[in-house]
């Protein structure tokens, strides 16, 4: 059995093992590969930077724990940026399993790092069922859709919500999304009707199709996958999980590129031999 045949019949578990090592080893021996900030992430940063102090950022947690490695670092970084700029945060979510992740992020950043006050600087309305219908109504009357926060407090008793009634009271809408309902619904049912600033953070698998909305101006920013999260961590100068993961990402990508090249060489060699 020659080299080409051996590679062609390689036990796939060896590939799994090498990919695992490519992810694990950089955690112990960090390479510190550079992270360049791309324009879609910079655009979002600039929009938040340009909002007047006291503006409201509506953040929709549209992901579950499986999307957390990619999106939770972006959520934390964007919250850091908002609270650093004294913006107010209105959190809700179209995915029920995302609610605890949102609560954890607000506790960690809002309360833990910036000592912000619940009800005054940020509120959390938790999961909002209904998808399209909810978003259509949300832009028209926020108080009607968000009658109680996740702790059961009536919206009228939350001071921050006194001046936040409809879409035109929101400075920026952010959909942290990994599927449906998510950014598509925000674009189609909310932005198409009420306009305003809308941006998204996406898991890598969903990110490519949102570049078209950036080009048309329907989105003002796009954070794509763990790489986008790492870029935002760099912008707010707070390195976290995404930055830690980028070395593993880069090494694993190089390995997979190597496998793709090797696989093609073997494919062509075997084809030539049979001919």
């Amino acid at each position, binding site marked *: 059995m020659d080299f080409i045949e051996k590679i062609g019949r390689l036990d796939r578990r060896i590939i799994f093992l090498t990919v695992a090592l490519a992810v*694990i080893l950089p955690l112990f021996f960090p390479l510190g590969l550079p992270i360049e900030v791309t324009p879609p992430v910079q655009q979002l940063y600039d929009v938040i930077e340009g909002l007047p102090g006291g503006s409201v950022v509506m953040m929709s947690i549209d992901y579950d724990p499986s999307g957390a*490695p990619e999106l939770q670092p972006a959520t934390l970084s964007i919250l850091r940026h908002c609270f650093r700029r004294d913006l107010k945060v209105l959190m809700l979510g179209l995915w029920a399993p995302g609610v605890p992740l949102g609560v954890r992020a607000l506790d960690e950043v809002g309360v833990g790092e910036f000592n912000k006050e619940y009800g005054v600087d940020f509120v959390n309305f938790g999961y909002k069922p209904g998808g399209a219908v909810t978003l259509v109504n949300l832009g028209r009357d926020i108080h009607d859709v968000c009658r109680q926060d996740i702790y059961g407090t009536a919206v009228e008793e939350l001071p921050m919500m006194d001046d936040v009634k409809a879409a035109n009271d929101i400075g920026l809408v952010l959909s942290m999304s990994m599927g449906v309902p998510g950014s598509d619904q925000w674009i*189609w049912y909310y932005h198409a009707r009420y306009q305003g600033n809308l941006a998204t953070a996406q898991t890598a698998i969903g*990110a490519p199709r949102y570049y078209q909305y950036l080009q048309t101006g329907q989105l003002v920013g796009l954070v794509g*996958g*763990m790489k986008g999260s790492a870029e935002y961590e760099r912008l707010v100068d707070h390195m976290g999980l995404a930055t830690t*993961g980028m070395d593993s990402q880069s090494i694993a990508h190089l390995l*997979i590129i190597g496998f793709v090249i090797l696989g093609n060489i073997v494919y062509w060699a075997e084809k030539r031999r049979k001919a």
Partner: protein
Amino acid sequence: MLMTTGPWVWVAALLTLAIYSFLYKDNPVYKVAEYIFVGLSAGYWAAFLWWNYAYPNLFEPLARGNYWNIIPIAMGLMMFTQLSRRTSWMVRFPLTFVLGVSLGLQIVAAVEGDMVPQLAGTFSPFTRGAMFNTYDFWTSVGYIVLLVGVLATITYFFFSKEHKGILGVSSKVGIYFLMVAFGASFGYTIMARISLLFGRVHFLLSDWMHVLK
């Protein structure tokens, strides 16, 4: 550097390892983890749908005297009539209602949110002269590539005429654009999958084993 004593971290870590054991080969430990996941998911979603949809939107308002809610409850029950051949005709009423509402929302959204802005975004740099006013060479090239890509890809999906001559060339160019798009998607998909693996590995090494800071 002691391992965690948190029981739920241990449960999560052992279940993670049980699922990954499938990569070696199918085994009973993996099956147990798989069945636990399926069972928990079914239970979670049943409770979720009841507490987030059925109870607060239907039954609780009904108990408070909102008798209009009998209509959606009746329509919901009609969904089950398809289980019998004699009564299955009744399912048409709720299905028609759902289809009508969905189409009404979807058509407007597709036109307002997708079709018109995307068409405008493709052609407006030329019609509004944005392309000629910009002094950035690569931005202008980008506008042209975008337009060529859109038109070529559309011709690839035009099946009313044989792909020969100009149409053949255009559809071939469209294939190349599609291949680039699929390649970009594949690259991003790999990034997503590696991120998932990284998330689990980081959890095992930091939260469970405490070998990472």
